[in-house]
């Protein structure tokens, strides 16, 4: 890795951390449980790395590892988003139909 790339990554990390703290601090306390499952789904972004490993099929071992990783990540994506939505559907205002 070139040092230029390293610094690019680090700038992105620094800024994303700031964004993260600001954004999460503003999440309504009402929604902290769905927040946990939503971030859970988002953290399944590891799928990106897993797909490449599983798809480039360089060695059998790496393909197996990649495939397991994709399966694990997809589990999180599917269950994370579905359950978040399921919980959020329950929240409604006074007098508001569901």
């Amino acid at each position, binding site marked *: *890795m070139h040092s230029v790339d390293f610094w690019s*990554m680090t700038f*992105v*990390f620094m800024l*994303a951390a700031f964004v*993260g*703290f600001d*954004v*999460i*601090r503003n*999440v*309504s*306390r*009402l*929604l*902290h*449980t769905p*927040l*946990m*499952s*939503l*971030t*859970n789904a*988002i*953290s399944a*972004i*590891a*799928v*990106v790395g*897993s*797909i*490449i*490993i599983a*798809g480039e*099929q*360089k*060695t059998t071992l790496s*393909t197996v*590892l*990649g*495939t*397991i*990783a*994709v*399966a*694990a*990540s997809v589990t999180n*994506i*599917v*269950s*994370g*988003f579905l*359950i978040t939505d399921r*919980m*959020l559907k*329950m*929240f*409604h*205002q006074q007098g508001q139909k*569901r």
Partner: protein
Amino acid sequence: MIENLTAAAYLAAGALFIFSLRWMSHPKTARRGVVAGVAGMTAAVGGTLLHPEIVGFEWIAIAVVIGTAIGVPLSRVALTAVPQRTAISHAFGGLAAGLVGTAKYILWLPEGELTGFRMGAISLEVLLGFLTFTGSLMAAGKLQEVIPTRPITYRGQNVINLGLLGVALLCGIGLVLDPTQWFLFPLLIGLSLAFGVLLIIPIGGADMPTVISLLNSYAGLAAVAMGYVLENKVLIIAGALDGASGLILSIIMCRAMNRSFSNVLFGAFGQVQGGPADAVERKPVKSATAQDVAELLELAREVVIVPGYGLAVAQAQHRAFELYEQLTKRGIRCRFAIHPVAGRMPGHMNVLLAEANVPYDALVEMDDINPDLGQVDVAIVVGANDVVNPAARHDKSSPIYGMPIIDVDKCKTVIANKRTMNPGFAGIDNELYTADNTLMLFGDAKAALGDVVKALSGESGLGH
């Protein structure tokens, strides 16, 4: 060209994830947040599938099918099992990160591509990934009570744990210095897996929510490390967002419990200290029947319901809603007072009550309702204990001293529902129950609230 498409997709994914979390700031926009999250994930996956290195899609497809097959049922668990589900999910996330790191090591080792920096990032990814994996599984086990929930402690435990972590870090350093020392790699994996287990053993089941949140943060950091390894910025963004989220939620929990991180991680707090048997000469309590409670409520103008962990255990949220409805129908103002750590995970009471159809504007946060409590005629405490314990305000020797509480003792009358006089999570007595203006309503929350609702509706027949 394709490179640019992928980069644009990743950029969009990053922005969408941020919007997704921003929209969680209010229940009105929150469902839009899920849509943004799904769109972001779709963009990220789509951009990845364009990668020219991908030669075959068959394994990916199989994995997607398997993942979906596990994921869908996992999303249908009961709301009480949500903490366990989250923990299991973190385990999957950690596993994926650890495996990708391992695969990258295996692929780059023969190619001589392992620069010191890459090796360092891989080591970190593998360490965080695998410790999250076993740690989360342990946490899920404790929450599901498959594994004994009480903290298991022994002398020198912290020394052993830190020693193990130190050896794992040394393996990582060894690999950075010379990546071809390949035997260090499985050692690193093994140590990470073991560390995850040992880390959780001394922590009581009831502290698991804080631990889960911390593990969420670790999973995020593992994704960041993967981002550095793969030079992929969307991984860094999503990882940083998760890392921040886990950290903030655990800080909120620690603060609301007035405890420090190290106390949660090393304090073995979950034990019942002394236990009810030791409690000497308790003041007598006044106990009431559902009928008494119903009569009291009929005369009230303003009522506050304070739900706690017992409401969740008893699945009494639907009864609580019926009570809320009965009262509202009679023109009695009824609100729910939500303590930030009531229950066993952040926001626990809110989802439960939302599930039972309680409108979210009737759920009031502790800080907003405390100033009003002096005007409240009746407070009904349902399976809550620590979060209404006045000792937190004045008893400096209490383990919960300094924890902010809902000041129900300032209400004109308090009705406290629980099954016994046993203490709650913190394992300490609660003087609220023996106060002059408190009436105990003993019994399972679901049954007890049900009786009160019946007594209320039976008497007046207004609802019929």
